[in-house]
């Protein structure tokens, strides 16, 4: 009854112009003026109603940069076109194969080309669909789509998911609703414009009703709907903007939620890989005689990253891995430690302008360590290779890239690889790369059986991907109480973006050489929201053989965090209150609104005992705005946040409850990064191996409450949220600490 998604896609009516549902033009994700584009739904060949979205794109037009009174800076590039826009643009041309289906069982099914990793995207998209098709939210099933080669730029990143799905998901649902109404009008013999819809059904004025499940077969025959597929105006919405719990909450609390290692793939052998002590060390020789003789061991095989052990159970795989005798060659960093990289970064960082006798300056330099993403679910994947084809199960932020990597690694055509995207137990950027699924494919091919590869926690922390070590050097000049120039020079270990990022940029119309990927991401994400005169922010990167990757907030996690600490130091130099100073130098009312609200929520300026203080910070990215106010107590054995207040404006909040979770949770990331944890590189080896030595914040480090105010819709399209909070949360906490201790923190995590 329900068509296979891929075959339905291929069987779709081509060039749906004649049959497309009429969808009113909608503003682009970038906001008014960034570009005009619209999605239209078109029918897929199917016995039930199944629709795909088609994009019609007009030429993008740049909008003017923000001005405001006082000194006017050039608009930052990220104000015009940010990284999320690029992701949306690259993908937009391929959204013709997004699929929405109404089943005869009265379920509305949507295939989401994204990874659900805790951020709540599946619930948010279900809300968009329920809104526009007029279904009960509980009747909507959002499923994670398999990787599809005809959807090459699928990426779960840069907080762009809601922005990317906002137009096409609603367009599809509205188009489906128009066809369901049309089918109902024919069945009931009444004019279509007299019918209403709600609760997954169509209602006639005389009280008769038909469920969508009863209508779907006839709706699939409707070529031209009798009513317009108009999306609801903001005032008509009854789902978007309401507080909803996660769609999968019950599965999670009953243990039914399936992660990659929980998927029941018959015969998949538990597999571990013995890895070198050094980063990128290699095998010289090994002896597996004892390991092979141990109970439960099925195979031992060498792969490029180490020696794989496959057994009937993980207990047996662990024991056998311990019994391997391996002679390792040192890795490329065997003579490199933190201090060497720190010195290199200092040497390569671009200089700030010389001081002038006429101007006063404020200077600061901030240092950040390597940091593992450390999602609680270790990296893992299941792969079955048979002949020249492979089937994979993996939690991937870049499923098409992962599929391509598997195909290349085992030498099979890409079209012979299927890849199922499984929910992730956290990601934070770590699942942009896909080493475990490649390893699983290599092992499965070598031994001729399906395998599940699990990295244990030590593997994950010592050989996974790292937030790069970085330094941020800043100089501001001021005269007569006004900031005249602001220079930020960031030097960092190169962030690896080679997860299909270049191809995506090309598709978005930006040809960028691989060496410039970091520059492209930097330019499209970092900005200074204040009237600080002439602003320049520059990045210099140096490649080291430490595996890196984007970490929640990417460059903003360093740049904007450092800037917001610097703003407090500039305010102090000018003898101004940190809140009032921000207020006076922000550009827009929308920016000031979140700052003012959080100051009010947390009673900014209230008297605090010695050793306690408030800190405040602001951040503006992904077309969203946020401010944090943190109260800290530094009189105990270690500093603790005692209260946190957040005000967030994402343009259009889809699910305020999920949004609150994002800005609450990211505070703990920020706290960990600034106060608790960082990795150390000692002669080519990462020192930390589990959560005790990489000290992620725990309950006893959490503030007792984090109070969040979500502003009601301020624009007509949603911005990003998943990474939004990190810089302001981190800086507000550090600013509170600096005020409580009368210190100027320079190296993070503080005290280590």
């Amino acid at each position, binding site marked *: 009854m329900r068509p296979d998604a891929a075959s339905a896609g291929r069987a779709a009516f081509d060039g749906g112009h004649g049959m497309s549902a009429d969808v009113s033009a909608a503003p682009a994700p970038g906001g008014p003026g960034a570009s005009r584009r619209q999605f239209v739904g078109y029918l897929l060949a199917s016995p039930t109603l199944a629709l795909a979205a088609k994009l019609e794109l007009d030429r993008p037009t740049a909008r003017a940069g923000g001005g405001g009174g006082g000194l006017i800076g050039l608009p930052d590039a990220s104000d015009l076109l940010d990284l999320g826009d690029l992701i949306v643009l690259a993908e937009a041309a391929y959204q013709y194969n997004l699929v929405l289906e109404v089943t005869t069982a009265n379920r509305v099914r949507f295939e989401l080309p994204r990874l659900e*990793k*805790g*951020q*709540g995207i599946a619930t948010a998209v279900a809300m968009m669909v329920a809104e526009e098709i007029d279904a009960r939210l509980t009747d909507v099933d959002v499923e994670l789509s398999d990787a599809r080669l005809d959807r090459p730029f699928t990426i779960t990143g840069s907080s762009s998911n809601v922005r990317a799905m906002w137009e096409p998901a609603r367009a599809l649902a509205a188009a489906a609703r128009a066809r369901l109404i049309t089918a109902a009008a024919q069945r009931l013999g009444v004019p279509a414009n007299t019918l209403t819809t709600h609760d997954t059904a169509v209602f006639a004025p005389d009280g008769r009703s038909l469920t969508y499940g009863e209508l779907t077969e006839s709706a699939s025959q409707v070529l031209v709907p009798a009513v317009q597929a108009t999306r609801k105006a903001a005032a008509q919405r009854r789902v978007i903007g309401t507080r909803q*719990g*996660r769609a*999968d*909450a*019950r*599965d*999670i*609390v*009953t*243990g*039914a*939620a*399936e*992660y990659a*290692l*929980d998927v*029941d793939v018959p015969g998949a052998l*538990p597999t571990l890989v013995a890895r070198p002590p050094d980063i990128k060390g290699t095998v010289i020789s090994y002896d597996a005689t004892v390991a092979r003789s141990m*109970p439960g061991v099925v195979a031992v095989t060498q792969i490029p990253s180490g020696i794989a052990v496959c057994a009937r*159970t*993980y*207990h047996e795989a*662990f024991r056998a891995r311990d019994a391997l005798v391996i002679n390792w060659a040192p890795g490329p960093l065997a003579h490199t430690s933190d201090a060497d990289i720190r010195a290199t970064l200092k040497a390569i960082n671009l200089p700030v302008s010389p001081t002038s006798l006429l101007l006063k300056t404020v200077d600061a330099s901030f240092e950040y360590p390597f940091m593992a993403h*450390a*999602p*609680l*679910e*270790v990296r893992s994947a299941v792969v079955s290779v048979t002949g020249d084809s492979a089937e994979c199960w993996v939690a991937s932020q870049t499923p098409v890239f992962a599929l391509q990597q598997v195909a290349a690694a085992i030498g099979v055509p890409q079209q012979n690889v299927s890849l199922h995207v499984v*929910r*992730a*137990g*956290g*990601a*934070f950027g770590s699942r942009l790369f896909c080493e475990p699924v490649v390893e699983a494919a290599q092992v499965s091919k070598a031994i001729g059986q399906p395998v599940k590869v*699990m990295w*244990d*926690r030590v593997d994950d922390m010592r050989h996974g991907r790292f937030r790069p070590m970085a330094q941020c050097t800043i100089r501001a000049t001021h005269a007569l109480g006004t900031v005249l120039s602001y220079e930020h020079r960031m030097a960092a270990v190169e962030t690896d973006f080679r997860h299909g990022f270049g191809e995506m940029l090309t598709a978005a119309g930006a040809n960028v050489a691989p060496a410039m990927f970091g520059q492209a991401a930097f330019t499209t994400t970092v900005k200074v929201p204040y009237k600080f005169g002439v602003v320049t922010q520059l990045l210099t990167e140096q490649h080291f053989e430490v595996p890196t990757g984007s970490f929640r907030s990417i460059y903003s996690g360093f740049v904007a965090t450092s800037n917001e600490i610097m703003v407090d130091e500039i305010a102090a130099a000018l003898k101004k209150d940190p809140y009032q100073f921000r207020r006076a130098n922000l550009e827009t009312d929308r920016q000031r609104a979140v700052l003012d609200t959080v100051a009010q929520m947390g009673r900014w300026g209230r008297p605090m005992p010695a050793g306690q203080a408030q800190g405040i910070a602001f951040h503006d990215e992904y077309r969203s705005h946020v401010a944090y106010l943190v109260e800290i107590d530094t009189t105990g054995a270690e500093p603790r946040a005692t209260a946190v207040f957040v005000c967030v404006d994402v343009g259009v909040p889809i699910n305020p*409850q999920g949004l609150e*979770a994002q800005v*609450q*949770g*990211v*505070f*703990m*990331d920020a706290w960990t990064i600034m106060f608790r944890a960082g990795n150390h590189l000692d002669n080519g080896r990462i020192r930390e191996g*589990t*959560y*005790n030595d990489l000290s*992620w*914040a*725990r*309950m*006893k480090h*959490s503030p*007792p*409450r984090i109070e969040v105010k979500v502003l009601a819709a301020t624009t007509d399209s949603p911005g990003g949220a998943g990474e939004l909070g990190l810089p302001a949360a981190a800086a507000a906490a550090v600013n509170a600490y600096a005020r409580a201790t009368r210190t100027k923190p320079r190296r993070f995590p503080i005290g280590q």
Partner: protein
Amino acid sequence: MPNQNLIVNGVATTVDLPDDFTMLWALRDVLGVTGPKFGCGVGVCGACTSHIGTQHDAFRPCMHSVAECRDQPVTTIEGLATGEVLHPVQQAWIDLDVAQCGYCQPGQIMTAVALIARNPNPSDADIDAAMSENVCRCGTYVRIRAAIKKAAADIRGG
């Protein structure tokens, strides 16, 4: 190999495993009980936390052998509800929308149930002490704290 009599979520099973076989892998790889998660394997993350005995004693299956668990009732997250009726702690987790990625939450819930079983009205300090051996990488701690208080109140009231 010796026969091990395991009683998991009310079902008695005899499995042929050596005494030192790790209970977590007996649950996951032998019995197919996948609610307890692997997060560290050394008892520092709490993702596999389950109960042993009849008094809701929390334990970490990654740190115990099947011989230590045999002949005793073991309850995992799958066995916490009574039929379709969720345990009040599970229900509070849903009511306050605690979970994000959800991977740590079976362990968090089992630890919270054990806490409330011993302390029907836990204070913030009690929660800090009891819950700080469970890592939540998504940072859901403020909601976990609120859900524990709600569940404890529901249990006291009901």
